[in-house]
C-alpha cells in the first residue's frame, strides 16, 4: 500500500509486538521507546520482553530525541521504497538515554554527515498521516 505522493511503503503497526505507542507518539511528534522498568534502560527495536531481564515489565516512555551519530552510510543503489530518495543518508544514532536507533539524516548533504555529530529527532512524513523518526544534524 504505497503512498501516491512518495511511493514509500507505509508500515503496518503491531504485526510483531504491540508498537501502537511508537506510532501514536510519532503522529504527535514524540519519540516513544520501550523502557525496562526493572533496570531503567531503554531498548530499541521493541521486544516482547526486556532484553536485560527477560521479564515483561516494560512500558513506553518519551525520549529526548537528542543523540550522537554512532555510525553512518549513504545508500546509493536502488531498492524497494527507495525511489527518489537516493543518495540516502542513514545513521545509527546513539540517543542520550543510552539506546541506538537507525534513522535517516535529513536536510543535509549526505557526504557531510559524520560520526560524532550531534543530532536531534526530526519527522519524516511518509504518508499524509504517518510520520517516522529521522534526524537533523544540530
Amino acid at each position, binding site marked *: 500500500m504505497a503512498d501516491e505522493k512518495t511511493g514509500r511503503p507505509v508500515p503496518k503497526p503491531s504485526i510483531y509486538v504491540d508498537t501502537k505507542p511508537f506510532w501514536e507518539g510519532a503522529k504527535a511528534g514524540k519519540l516513544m521507546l520501550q523502557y525496562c522498568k526493572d533496570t531503567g534502560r531503554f531498548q530499541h527495536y521493541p521486544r516482547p520482553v526486556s532484553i536485560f531481564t527477560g521479564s515483561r515489565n516494560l512500558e513506553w516512555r518519551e525520549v529526548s530525541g537528542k543523540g550522537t551519530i554512532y*555510525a553512518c552510510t549513504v545508500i546509493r543503489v536502488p531498492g524497494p521504497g527507495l525511489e527518489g530518495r537516493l543518495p540516502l543518508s542513514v545513521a545509527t544514532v546513539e540517543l542520550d538515554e543510552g539506546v541506538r536507533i537507525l534513522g535517516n539524516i535529513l536536510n543535509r548533504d549526505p557526504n557531510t554527515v559524520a560520526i560524532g555529530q550531534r543530532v536531534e529527532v526530526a519527522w519524516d512524513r511518509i504518508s499524509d498521516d504517518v510520520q517516522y523518526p529521522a534526524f537533523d544534524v544540530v
Partner: protein
Amino acid sequence: MSGKKRDIVIAGYSETAIDFKSGRSAFDLGGEALAKLLAATGIPKDAIDGLSVTAPLSECPNPFFAVYMTEALGITPTWLNYGGTGGCSATGGVARAASAIRDGYCEVAVVLSADAPSTAWRANYGAYRSEFQDPPGVQGPPATFGLLMSRYNHQFGIKPEALGKIAITQREHALHNDNAYTKFKTPITMADYEKSRVIADPLRLLDCVMFCDGANAFLVTTEKKARELGITKMVYPTAYAEVTNFNGSDPLADITETGFSKIAPIVYGQSGLAPKDIRMFQPYDDFTIAVMMKFEDFGFCKRGQGSEFTLDTDLSHKGTLPLNTGGGQISAGQPGLASGGLNLAEAVRQMFGEGEGRQVPDPRNALVTGIGVIPYARNWGTSAAMILEA
C-alpha cells in the same frame, strides 16, 4: 594435546557449479550434490542414516523442507537436523552431526546445503523489519555493512587498498576454480576495485557477494566406519564453536567487537593450535571487511591492525596464510544460504590434495568460519568456526 577429539571425520565432500539464475530448485541442486557425494565416496545411498539440511531462501515458505528433502533423495534418516543459522549451517551441521553420531542417533550423516535464491527468492524475514528497518531504507546487508565499516574506520582506520587486495586475491583464486560462476572468472586489478561502484559508503561493489544458486554436501561419520566403507581420504574436525546474538543484551555494545572474539580462543583451545600453526584460512566472506575483521579476531594480527596485516601478508594459495583459495563466495558466487558450505568444501578439497592449480602446499589443517544473519544496527547474528586437521 590431550583430549583432542579425533573420532569423527569428514569423509567426503561435493559441490555443484555456482550459477546465476540457473532456473533450478534447491531440491534439484541438492540431488546433484548428493549424487556427486556418493560417486566421490563410493558409498551406497542406504548407508546414510543421518541428514542435516540447511534452510534455504528459495524454499523458505515450506517449514518441512528438510523432510521433503529426505523424500526427494530417497533417504530414511534416524537423525534429521534442519539448520537455520544461514551461513553457519554447514559447519554447524557437521558439528551437530558429530554430536549425534557420538550419541548413537546415526552413524553416517550427510550435511547438505542447497539454495537457489537467484532463481526463486521466497524468503520473508518478517518480524520487526517492516516497521523499524525498512522505513529508513536499511533493507539488506550492504547498508548494515556500510554502517559497520564506517564505525570500524572511525575507530581503527581502513586502508581501501587492503580490502581491494582481499578482493583481488580471491578473484585470482577463483580463476582456478571450475565451480566458480563463469562471469567472475576474469582477473581484477586495484584500479577495477577503486572504480567499482559505491553501494553504501564506504562499501563498494567488489567488496560484496552476489546471490547465486548452488549446493554442497559433506559425509560425516566415525573414522572407523569410514574405513569400513573403504574410504581413505578424510579430515578430522577437531574444533568447533559458535555463538548467536553476541552482545545482544547490550544496546551500546561496540559493533566492531564480534562473536569471533569469543569463539576464536575456544577453537584454538580445543585443537591445541595457535594462529601461527594455521595452514589456510577459509573465512565466510559475504563482505571483504568481515574477512579483515576475522584476521584480527583469530589473532593473526592485533585488533585494528587488519589493514596492515592484509597488505603485509601473502594471502595467495602459495603464501604464508592462503585465503579463500577457491575464490570464496565473493568471487565464486554465493549459493544462497548454502554459502557456508562453499568455504568448508574448499578446505576439505585442499586437505584432500585436490586443489589442482590452486593447491596449498602442506595442507595439514584449515580454519573455516561461518556468518549467519544480519541483525539490526550491529554486525552479524551467528558466528561459527571449525578447525580441520589431517
